[in-house]
């Protein structure tokens, strides 16, 4: 681990507090409840993509534990237990640290805060997708951002098309990465070697251009020739139009060439970008296959946002001390009881001092109002 660890002092730590309050209110008003899973997970339970990137701890009995790289796996386990007790409509939100061993890309942190929601239901319904994406937009609005986009894609659009052409798993994976990178010529070179018709190669290249606003849905129809692709496009259109009707058009966009982790996601996927930051601040999607693994009739959609990245661009929440309370020995008791009558941010001095010192220290903190308690008297300085 690097010699530098990230510590949070005010105002950064205060920002985190405020975020916690805001999301508690926002998600709480839709029935999401906070969860605090253990920071540890069994190494064996991790998805392959997370195994290499996790901090590993060897327990006293030789078992390998890891620090969580994300929340979804642990919250899924908690949901499964609740499901055991008979409930199949579960809404969680979380706020806490995750840990990643490798930081090779821009914006990567080894230790950072994630906030997120998991919407886990007994059926797969596009309305849940809509709710979750709307909450992603509302999250960014709550955090003070005005210029941003939640960019949406659908993995089954691509899966349907590759199925039609009978690509094997390995080729699908490679093609997927090329399309996700919008590597026009890479696609041409890869498929050219495989004796595939030029018109088909052209189709795959054109998928990399299927990004933008609503017009993308019309353009994409021409490529959705099989049932899977058609259905996925209908679903995506339904979601997009609903969000548009809710007034979110300015904050959403589409990219059918978005294909990250398509073996994990089973439907809609989305990524949030804020103005001025070159890498995403949030990402999520539908991941029904996770509960299939647990043999359960549960369907899930959710997202996570990285607060450190958001902090890079967030304005301050304008917190400074407004009131300073000082006292002499006799005034301590009255001073102590006085704090409950003040709503502003208070600094209560921890030892008796002269009034001049109270004024000096208040100035250092930027507190404009100074109350001084001498015996039974209050002075406003």
């Amino acid at each position, binding site marked *: 681990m690097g010699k530098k660890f990230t510590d949070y002092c005010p105002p950064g730590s205060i920002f985190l507090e405020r975020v916690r309050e805001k999301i508690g209110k926002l998600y709480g008003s839709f029935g999401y409840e906070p969860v605090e899973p253990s920071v540890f997970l069994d190494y064996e339970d991790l998805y392959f993509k997370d195994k290499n990137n996790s901090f590993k701890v060897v327990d006293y009995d030789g078992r390998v534990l890891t620090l969580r790289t994300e929340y979804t796996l642990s919250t899924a386990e908690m949901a499964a237990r609740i499901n055991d007790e008979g409930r199949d409509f579960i809404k969680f939100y979380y706020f806490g640290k995750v840990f990643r061993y490798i930081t*090779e*890309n*821009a*914006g990567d942190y080894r230790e950072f805060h994630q906030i997120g929601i998991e919407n886990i239901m007994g059926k797969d319904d596009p309305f849940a997708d809509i709710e979750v994406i709307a909450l992603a937009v509302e999250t960014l609005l709550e955090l003070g951002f005005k*210029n*941003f*986009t939640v*960019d949406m894609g659908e993995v089954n659009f691509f899966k349907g098309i590759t199925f039609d052409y009978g690509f094997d798993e390995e080729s699908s994976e490679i093609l997927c990465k090329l399309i996700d*990178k*919008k*590597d*026009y*010529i*890479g696609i041409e070179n890869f498929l050219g070697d495989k004796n595939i018709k030029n018109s088909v190669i052209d189709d795959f290249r054109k998928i*990399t251009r299927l*990004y*933008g606003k609503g017009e993308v849905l019309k353009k994409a129809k021409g490529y959705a020739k099989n049932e899977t692709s058609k259905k996925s496009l209908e679903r995506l259109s339904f979601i997009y139009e609903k969000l548009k009707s809710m007034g979110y058009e300015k904050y959403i*966009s589409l*990219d059918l060439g978005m294909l990250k982790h398509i073996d994990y996601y089973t439907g809609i996927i989305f990524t949030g*970008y*804020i*103005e*001025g*930051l*070159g*890498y*995403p601040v949030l990402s999520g999607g539908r991941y029904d296959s996770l509960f299939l693994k647990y043999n359960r009739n549960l369907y899930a959609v959710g997202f996570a946002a990285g607060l450190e990245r958001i902090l890079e661009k967030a304005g301050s929440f304008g917190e400074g001390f407004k009131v300073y309370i000082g006292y002499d020995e006799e005034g301590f008791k009255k001073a102590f009881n006085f704090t409950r009558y003040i709503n502003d941010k208070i600094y209560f001095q921890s030892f008796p001092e002269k009034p001049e010192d109270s004024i000096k220290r208040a100035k250092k903190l930027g507190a404009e109002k100074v109350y001084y308690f001498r015996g039974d008297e209050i002075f406003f300085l």
Partner: protein
Amino acid sequence: MITIALPKGRLAQETADFFEKCGLLNIKMEEDSRKLIFIDEVNNLRIILVKPFDVPTYVEYGAADMGVVGKDVIMEKNVNIFEILDMGIGRCFLALAGVKGKKEDFIRKKDKVIATKYPEVTREYFEKINHQSLKVIRLNGSVELAPLLGLADGIVDVVETGRTLKENGLEVYEKLFDISARLIINRASLKMKKDLINDIVGRIERGLEIEGAICPKS
């Protein structure tokens, strides 16, 4: 305002000239100038000149919205960006090279040592063809010296005409990959500045079509 990162050197000038032909750029970038930032107020463009291996870094962080850089650099650095076009310029190839006439010795040698500016690409390539044991030494330039001084048995480097190799008594043992300059775009910029970027990419594409019609690919 769109910021484009160009790699210092000949490719920067070639790209700037091409941009001018496409109607994208309207300023003079003097070759001998020490300036690193050029602003084109008319076209709302900012060009920055950086070291080739830094172009993907600026683009990945979003400090530059777009960049032009060789495929060799993109292959070496695993960055999260869109690689949207082949610019068709800066054509060369990555090759395995070594002392002239010693190719057979090189093939037979166990525990090969290869010096290169591209350790990741080199390792991945040799892993694919299952070499027994390979040591890679990272160098930052004048890689041709390595086999001459016995630092390495061979090198992996970019070759254009082959003149540098020839003049230093080396020869190409094996051609690995064709290289050309690519247009790369920051992921957030493509979505957040879509119209501006699509306009630029459109002009470049039309420029490439015209160029392709006049001088077909060699």
